[in-house]
């Protein structure tokens, strides 16, 4: 009797099933080329290990900087009214729709302006350095971080902050003792997803810092190098590591402990 309903549900579920199947096929396709001995051998090599270390350190550093700037910026967008807010709110999304390749190019170009030359003169150089990687990743991920944190702060009931004010808190105390604790779950999720985006960043990083093996080659750059040299065992190893990190991130975010609120 419910047949029409069942057909409709089936028709809507089918694309989802196909999509999941396709993703499973993708994730599984490396298994044809994967061997544990290759993997362990590759992992043992110095330049792979330095790529892993470089990626972890750079992603963590750029995430920390991005979140430190994004928390107040997102709070300001969520709560404070100021003239031109709509414009700022739109413009801040630019790095999310502009290809990282273009962002990387713009970073390099900005380094050739007077500000960049000034920094170069005092010894801070970006192109093809570790600092360059961090700046590239930061530039790509900070907007995502602002966007996620804004959504998080918007979910905190402003009433809670207001009640805190009336119980004697200054605006800053209320932010510290009420807003941040209530937003901690969203902040943690934003940190994890920002970090995932940073560790996978390729376009801007490769433009700014290049792909010098053992120096500025992050995990994605190393895959690119390996594939361009048809070094399949290395590419498979790196891809498996990144899949592992991605799955950890995906399921990690879902398991961020529910806050009591």
């Amino acid at each position: 009797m419910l047949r029409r309903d069942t057909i409709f549900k089936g028709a809507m579920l089918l694309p989802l099933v196909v999509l999941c199947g396709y993703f499973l096929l993708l994730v599984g396709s490396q298994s044809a080329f994967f061997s544990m001995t290759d993997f362990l051998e590759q992992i043992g090599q110095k330049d792979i290990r330095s790529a892993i270390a470089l990626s972890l350190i750079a992603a963590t550093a750029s995430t920390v900087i991005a979140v430190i700037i994004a928390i107040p910026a997102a709070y300001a967008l969520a709560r404070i009214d100021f003239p031109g807010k709509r414009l700022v709110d739109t413009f801040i999304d630019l790095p999310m729709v502009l290809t990282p390749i273009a962002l990387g190019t713009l970073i390099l170009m900005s380094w050739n302006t007077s500000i960049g030359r000034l920094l170069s003169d005092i010894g801070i150089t970006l192109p093809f350095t570790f600092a360059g990687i961090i700046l590239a990743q930061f530039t790509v991920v900070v907007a995502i971080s602002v966007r996620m944190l804004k959504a998080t702060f918007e979910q905190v009931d402003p009433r809670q902050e207001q009640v805190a004010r009336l119980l004697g808190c200054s605006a800053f105390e209320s932010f510290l003792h009420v807003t941040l604790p209530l937003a901690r779950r969203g902040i943690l999720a934003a940190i994890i997803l920002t970090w995932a985006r940073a560790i996978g960043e390729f376009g801007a990083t490769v433009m700014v810092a290049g792909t010098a093996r053992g120096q500025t080659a992050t995990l994605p750059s190393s895959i690119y190098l390996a594939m361009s040299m048809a070094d399949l065992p290395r590419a498979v190893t790196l891809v498996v590591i990144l899949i592992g990190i991605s799955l950890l991130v995906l399921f990690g975010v879902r398991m961020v402990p529910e806050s009591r609120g």
Partner: protein
Amino acid sequence: MIRIEQLTTRQGSFTLGPIDLDLGESSYLTILGPSGAGKTLFLEACMGLLTAHSGRVWINGTDVTHIPPEQRHISYLPQDLALFPHLGVKENILFGARHRKVDKELAESRLGELLDLLDLHGIVNRHDVTSLSGGEKQRVALARALLPGPRLLFLDEPFSALDATIRRQLQVSLREINRQLGVTILHVTHDQEEAFMLGERIAVMIAGRLRQIGDRDNIYYQPESLDVANFLRNQNIYDTTVAAIAADGSLQMENSITGAPSYPGAQVGDHVAVGIRSEEIVIIRSNKPIGPELQQNLFDGTVKDILAFGGTHTLIVEVLSTGTCVDVELPNCAMRDLGYNIGDELQICLRRHSLWTIKKEVNDVAV
């Protein structure tokens, strides 16, 4: 205690005010209005959570218009309570003491008093405030608001989510808090019963303005504008014209109602609305002698419809001479004695001391 002068503010396209209000020491004012009237906005503007566009707010003689909320020493119980979910019951209650730097011993002794007053001993050590029942949350939020020893307490629809029995208990507690602790209370609600029971004075807010301020009888029996009359469920409102002004100053209407109260500057020919509460209408029983106050405004009619409520019935009586309908409310005990049916004929009296008159402005429309 708190004085508000020509306060206005705006949110989106909604304009609040200008509002004037003066609340004395230990007084209890309820602000009654439909949802969307701007009641919460008004509280926010008084507390400094919202910037006033114009006007001033004084607390204890000090102009606090430009003082931040935390320095106004108002306690606030919002409609959704806004308990801090990351803190336990005791930490919630003591939050104000911590941030107002109340002396630790004093805070502890006040905590003890409030636990007694609000019967919170059983739950004071609970860690998860989200697991409390509605009434428990309410009491915790009230204790949190009272702990800093405020002289001014703002309540925003505090009981709307509670069931009747718990609501009554908390209403009685509030009266005691007002009387015993001498806290001045400004209480916003859309519930008429609550507003009438708790408020020493009642202010009716409609569409961002205070339309009438007065005591129970004034608000209930003498609405000063048609929107107040409508909001307070006056069912019997009749448009008419002043036909004559009697020697005692009372008004005689075109629709043959006499003895209606006058208003400043009343003139023959004024368009007015005359009304009377449906429970104030007397059914004349022919077998009983009637006093002098029931000699006026007698109308013959037939029962068109009977609406039954829990404890009352409403007869819809069609007046024979004019064809207008009059709602007559009877308690069930009277209905049992009289036993009316649809089609019955009867005589009703609109007692003159229960009538009210409102002069109609050109743009007033009766609903």
